[in-house]
């Protein structure tokens, strides 16, 4: 993956930049931004997978859920935590389907 490569390579490179910068900034930022950055990075990763036709209907649903709920971190902290709990349970249900 190179910054000068294909559009997808660039997007992956930018996502890595985002995660590294987040790691640094979170040293000082408010605690709740940690879960926010992780969930946002998940959404960004799924977006890249979608463009490459490597996603799935399940992951698309996960991304929709993230996009519809992620900003609760600044408006409804309890709602944000409930959303994360629900999302984990959704992932577990899918994990179990894998056998």
């Amino acid at each position, binding site marked *: 993956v190179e910054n000068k490569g294909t559009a997808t390579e660039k997007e992956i*490179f*930018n996502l890595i*930049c*985002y995660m590294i*910068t987040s790691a640094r*900034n979170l040293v000082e930022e408010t605690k709740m*931004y940690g879960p926010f950055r992780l969930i*946002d990075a998940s959404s960004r990763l799924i977006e890249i997978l979608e463009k490459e036709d490597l996603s799935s209907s399940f992951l698309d649903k996960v991304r929709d859920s993230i996009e519809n709920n992620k*900003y609760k971190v600044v*408006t409804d902290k309890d709602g944000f935590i409930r959303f994360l709990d629900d999302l984990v349970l959704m992932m577990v249900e899918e994990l179990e389907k894998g056998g």
Partner: protein
Amino acid sequence: MSIMDIIKKRRSIRSFEEREVDDEVLTKLIEAGVWAPSGGNAQTWVFIAVKDPQRIERIKAISPGMFGTPAALIVVCQDKKAAYEKGGELGRDTVSVMDAAMATQNILLEATARGLGSCPILSFHKGGLKRLLKLPEHIVPELIISLGYPAEAPKPPERKFAEVYFLEEYSGGK
């Protein structure tokens, strides 16, 4: 629109249309910024407008607080050397940050009045941004304002009034 209408209309916008922001509009926004108050009339701010999509993409990569694809950015900086010369340590470390914030609010309101969406961003890497903008050591970026025509109309979060407003003296909880 009254000033109160504009204040209440402003939202943090994180999704933008693919539509350019004219240079003339950017100039007006920065004019609104330089008309903000500053401690001791220091006016030690520096504003950098960015429109080049590649540069915006690079800045976004090191700005976790930036969302969507803004058509333009205004980076509100402070000349810390000048701020120290004018206001000492208090001027450099505190007043200059407040001045940048007041200039930013002016820009946000002018942007709203012109139909633009905006979002003030503090979550970025200062050293990385300084390098991308070729800023000398003493020019420090305080805030990034992302700008563009809004592709969303978020609802305003609830505001408290009775709990935060007191007349003459504080009568809230201790």
